[in-house]
């Protein structure tokens, strides 16, 4: 038996836990907070420099979580600086799938083909942006830079959509108005017919009642 006070202790951080700790590569995260809390967990970083950074980042994430404890979902804005720090200090890769899908809606040339007049310049721009997004589809910072660069293009597209929606709404309103007018007209006609029938019936009744006396 050994004397327990003579034990030479070795201080461990997360030694032996790395096998269980690797984050799932293809996991689809519902929001940025969930992604960061999983990818920045200190248990993934065994070397000392990254471990300290991970610990600090993790603590900051928890602080943000506490601030928005009562909210349904943590907004992305306060998480962006932490995300950028995590990318630079820990070298994590943030999922870009949702952002790329969103941008591709704007940069798909097919949606402009049926437009009249044919928007050649717009299609050319959409193709350039599309190519750029596909080239940097794994890099969230590059994707955001492209989004910023294409903000004018996107907003004009949004305006077009808005305009289309407005026109559609006007068309629907017009149709509804026409329908209502038609209905009112039919109702009026029905009322006239009903009045005529009632009047004729009344005349017929009077004739039937007073005819014997006249004779």
């Amino acid at each position: 038996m050994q004397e327990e006070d003579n034990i030479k202790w070795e201080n461990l951080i997360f030694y032996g836990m790395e096998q269980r700790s690797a984050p799932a590569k293809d996991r689809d995260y519902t929001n940025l907070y969930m992604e960061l809390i999983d990818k920045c967990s200190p248990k993934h970083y065994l070397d000392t420099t990254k471990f300290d950074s991970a610990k600090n980042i993790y603590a900051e994430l928890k602080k943000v979580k506490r601030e928005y404890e009562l909210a349904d979902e943590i907004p992305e804005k306060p998480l962006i600086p932490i995300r950028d720090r995590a990318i630079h200090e820990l070298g994590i890769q943030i999922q870009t799938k949702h952002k790329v899908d969103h941008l591709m809606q704007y940069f798909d040339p097919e949606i402009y083909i049926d437009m009249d007049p044919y928007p050649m310049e717009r299609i050319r721009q959409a193709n350039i942006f599309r190519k750029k997004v596909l080239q940097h589809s794994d890099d969230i910072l590059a994707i955001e830079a492209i989004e910023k660069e294409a903000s004018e293009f996107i907003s004009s597209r949004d305006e077009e959509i808005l305009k289309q929606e407005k026109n559609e709404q006007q068309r629907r309103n017009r149709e509804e108005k026409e329908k209502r007018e038609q209905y009112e007209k039919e109702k009026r006609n029905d009322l006239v017919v009903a009045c005529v029938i009632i009047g004729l019936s009344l005349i017929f009744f009077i004739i039937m009642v007073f005819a014997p006396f006249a004779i």
Partner: protein
Amino acid sequence: MSSFANIWIWIKDWFEDRSERTKLIRSFNKAAREAFVIGIAPVLLQATISKGYRPYRHQFSSLLGGSGFRIKAMSGRQLTKDDIASIGAVVLADNILVRRLVVLGFDTFEVHCDVGTYGCRWQLYDFILIGSNS
């Protein structure tokens, strides 16, 4: 009057904590014995309270010493670092246990075996944030 009340509350809490710590150690030892007898655990583990490691102290650390949760593995041979680390990892994976240890004033988690003079220790505070991803 209020300071007297505070002291009284502190004494009461201290005794309650002592009692809770003893209960925790006893239940851990009982579970470890059962696991060893049934064959789930390959080594028999025995938990005791140790004085802890001063740099690992946190704000809930036991004031009067005894802030270490020490596990002795009855293996009958000198265990390697990997063996000891894997025993530690199994215990530290239990988040509820880790949190309970921290609130009961433990700050250091130690594992060693009954042969040799080598042991490993962890700072419990590092593990209370981990595992709660939501």
